[in-house]
């Protein structure tokens, strides 16, 4: 299949359509506006339904309803919008309803700014919802990877009966790269939903008794048993969904840990450091939860320093420290607020940190 040059946000929408999405709900927010815009004219053509809600709160709850009745549902937003959706996501986890959410993140906190940020790391990996729940999160580094992940994540969401999150950022949403689009999957016909999703609220026509989707469990023992059942699948997710890439760990003196846009900057930083005589390696978490701790076991004997490299004040740092298990000193290189550092700046700061560690 031939490649086409597509803007990230439009490619993300097309990936969802090709995954057989039936419904999209959203509310405009920069820098992901091209997602709802694209869905508004392309999803109806593909046989699906687009609806612009009156707020992110409404969008996530409409998505909840449509997904509970068995439709493939996609939602997208950007950082402050995701904060508004958190309550709904907690309910969706609690009721074990699958859907895919895309966060094209920007600077924060609050309304923040519209330039790229990664300060949603804690929001997406820990959640802003109450209670014991987890949402698998995947962080692509480019448009093709994001397209492939969105396409696949609907199957993951349905397998685990849980929301799945994709964390992209403003740069990925706005830029263009060549993409190879996956084949179009058919939207599951309504008549087939009771067979494909026997738990879905489809009425009593095709099965005995009612399906009920509910979050309220007043009996503590009933609630505890339900949460423990959810955590059995989260334990499976921790085994099955770990994904990462590594570059040059075996003989690296410095190892960067970076995801998304920051990992691409690190790739160039590594070349700059090689010119200065320092071999650097990279761990790129693709799954942020479950965090790829085992990637750190691939680090070779020459490593003197691990650097969490982030577009936030260091939200991933604690996960990196846990994974490092005191085997190496762990430092942080970061910018925030929508500023993306140059590879030269990262290289300069990494060289300085390395000197400090050696001293």
């Amino acid at each position, binding site marked *: 299949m031939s490649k086409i040059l597509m803007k990230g946000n439009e490619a993300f929408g097309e990936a969802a359509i090709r995954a057989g999405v039936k419904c999209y709900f959203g509310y405009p927010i920069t820098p992901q506006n091209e997602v709802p815009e694209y869905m508004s004219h392309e999803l109806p053509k593909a046989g699906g339904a687009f609806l612009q809600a009156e707020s992110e709160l409404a969008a996530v709850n409409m998505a909840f309803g449509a997904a509970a009745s068995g439709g493939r549902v996609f939602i997208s937003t950007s950082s402050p919008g995701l904060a508004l959706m958190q309550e709904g996501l907690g309910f969706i986890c609690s009721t074990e309803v699958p859907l895919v959410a895309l966060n094209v993140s920007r600077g924060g906190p609050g309304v923040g700014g519209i330039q790229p940020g990664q300060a949603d790391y804690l929001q997406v990996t820990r959640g802003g919802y109450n209670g014991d729940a987890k949402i698998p999160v995947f962080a692509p580094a480019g448009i093709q990877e994001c397209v492939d992940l969105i396409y696949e994540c609907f199957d993951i969401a349905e397998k685990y009966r849980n929301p799945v999150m994709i964390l992209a950022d403003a740069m990925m949403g706005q830029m*263009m790269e060549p993409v190879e689009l996956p084949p179009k999957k058919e939207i599951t016909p309504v008549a087939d939903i009771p067979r494909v999703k026997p738990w879905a609220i489809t009425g009593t026509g095709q099965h005995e008794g009612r399906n009920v989707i509910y979050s309220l469990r007043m009996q503590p023992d009933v609630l505890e048993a339900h949460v423990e059942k959810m955590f059995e699948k989260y334990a499976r997710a921790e085994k099955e969904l770990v994904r990462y890439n590594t570059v040059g760990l075996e003989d690296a003196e410095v190892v960067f840990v970076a995801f998304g846009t920051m990992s691409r900057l690190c790739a160039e930083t590594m070349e700059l450091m090689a010119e200065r005589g320092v071999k650097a390696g990279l761990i790129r978490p693709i799954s942020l939860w479950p965090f790829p701790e085992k990637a750190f076991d691939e680090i070779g004997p020459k490593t003197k320093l691990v650097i969490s490299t982030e577009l936030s004040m260091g939200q991933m740092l604690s996960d990196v420290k846990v994974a490092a298990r005191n085997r190496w000193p762990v430092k942080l290189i970061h910018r925030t607020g929508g500023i993306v550092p140059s590879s030269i700046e990262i290289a300069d700061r990494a060289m300085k940190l390395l000197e400090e560690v050696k001293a």
Partner: protein
Amino acid sequence: MLKKLFFAGSGGQGALAIGQLIAKASMEEGNEVTYLPSYGPEMRGGTANATVVISDRPISCPLINECDVLVVMNLPSLTRFEPMVKPGGLLFMNSSLIPEKASRGDIRVIEVPANEEAQKLGIDRAANMVMLGAILKETGIVRFETVYNELEHMFSGRKAKFLEPNRKAVDLYL
């Protein structure tokens, strides 16, 4: 092969469109490309720029520290971005709107009176296409035929009447 290009102008001048056309054409010729536009609340009249990276290998980073080719459509863009050009690199400047000379002595400067040439052709808005023609001629970064195919896609249907004038504008420097 790794080429880094940077396009800048005021919103509406079509600097981004030049970058996008080159990126698309280069992809059609089998290269890896990235196209990264600046974005913000500004629209027409605000500042606009785009970074294009072209390579025969996968591109690690779409952001650049310096460029091989800089294209500036107005004076503020020249002032701001001239230092980005690598020594020995190329600077294309729209001399219709930039009365000043470039300050660097270690780069090759190509002055293109893009607006005047477009006006002479009777299509004021195609100044960016005149500039594109000059870039194609000087750099050979993509073939004219590939760009022309892209123009055909761009100017189809109701916009088909603009194809020929734009082709003429691109053709001017070739």
